[in-house]
């Protein structure tokens, strides 16, 4: 008789894997999200000077309608429920996006952009952005983060609006900051200190200069 042990091991692994998979599928997205979702709608925008709730449409220079390749550009906007900002930068058919509520919720998403302007970007924390470029002037789509879905519209953004990031070490702590500057000057940013997220101080949108914990940093525009 052949040794049954190894086969049983494989079968046990298979059964365990399928069991966990069905557990995941049936429990769905409720597990992780429920505790978080209560807090977010009451979003009080952290220290910001600019007038909120009026996303001035950008002056869109030459909406390139070429179907074959997606033009390089940046897009920035708010979610429909006005709790978070979304920015997308496209370079050579690749996109990087940042989803950020300015308080503790953020996700960096990456992925390819199809020739028809659709994109599906994913983040290491599991967030997913589904978007479609509309006539090269804006992106409509949704971000799914921690079990919640946020519809958003991001208009074309020209510098200094768009997506900024700064990483540094300040007194031994790893600092990772991300900012979305909307065309109307409104900023949404989060600084993560050793994995702990908090509202970010304002950056100077002209230079990217920002002071985090007393340290002068320079944020850079983000490219995929």
């Amino acid at each position, binding site marked *: *008789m*052949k*040794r049954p*042990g*190894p*086969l049983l*091991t*494989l079968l*046990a*692994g298979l059964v*365990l*894997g399928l069991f*966990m*998979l069905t*557990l*995941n599928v049936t*429990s769905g*997205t409720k*597990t*992780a*999200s429920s505790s978080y979702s209560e807090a977010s709608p009451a979003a009080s925008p952290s220290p910001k000077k600019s007038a909120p709730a009026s996303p001035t449409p950008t002056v869109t220079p030459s909406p390139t309608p070429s179907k074959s390749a997606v033009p390089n550009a940046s897009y920035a906007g708010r979610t429909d429920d006005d709790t978070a900002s979304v920015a997308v930068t496209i370079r050579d058919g690749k996109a990087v996006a940042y989803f950020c509520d300015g308080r503790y919720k953020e996700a960096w998403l*990456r*992925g390819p952009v199809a020739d028809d302007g659709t994109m*599906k970007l*994913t*983040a*290491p*924390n*599991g*967030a*997913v952005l589904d978007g479609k470029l509309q006539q090269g002037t804006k992106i409509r789509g949704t971000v*799914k*983060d*921690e*079990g919640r879905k946020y519809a958003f519209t991001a208009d074309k953004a020209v510098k200094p609006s768009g997506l900024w990031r700064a990483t540094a070490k300040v007194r031994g702590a*790893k600092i990772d900051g991300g900012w979305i500057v909307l065309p109307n000057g409104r900023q949404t940013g989060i600084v993560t200190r*050793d*994995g702990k997220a908090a509202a970010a101080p304002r950056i100077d949108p002209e230079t990217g200069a920002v002071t985090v914990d007393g340290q002068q940093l320079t944020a850079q525009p983000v490219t995929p």
Partner: protein
Amino acid sequence: MTADPNAATQAFPPPPHRRDSPARYLVPALVAAAVAVGLGVYGKVHDPTGTAFNLAGFSSTGAVKSWLATTAFFFALVQVVSAFMVYGKLPGPSWSATLHRWSGRIAFLVAVPVAVHCLYAFGYQTYSTRVMWHSALGCLFFGAFSAKMLLLRSERLPGWLLPLVGGLVFTGLTLLWLTSALWFFRTFGVST
């Protein structure tokens, strides 16, 4: 006492015509390829959901996975040592073969939930070098492990084959751990 795991049992010699049947190598190789490709295709095709199980007492699924992976890696180290014992390259107790079997089983079964979470929540990704290697190696690891398990069922294998495949499995798991759990601990700190 050490036992050669490849030794044919006296009581039941394999029929001579099967000794060189290519199926002994072909079946494990094909199954390994099917497992690796299957996992990769599933990870690529299905929509990453982002959420999955979490265990009480851990701050995030990343922490859970990192500790599970570290557990698997620890047992993988036990695997290497006990394999040397089984082959008589290191002095070992009489139960080193049992130790090898069970540490391997535990390592594998601990790694399965991690892989399920990876595939279910993240999918096959290539957006950075670390992630690309982790995705590819993850698929290859389970393929190589399946091959190792199936090869164990054959008798009279060439002496170098099991150590080679076992070494591949260990190398794969080590690289997987380096590209995930170690990265997690270095990025977010050693937390639970």
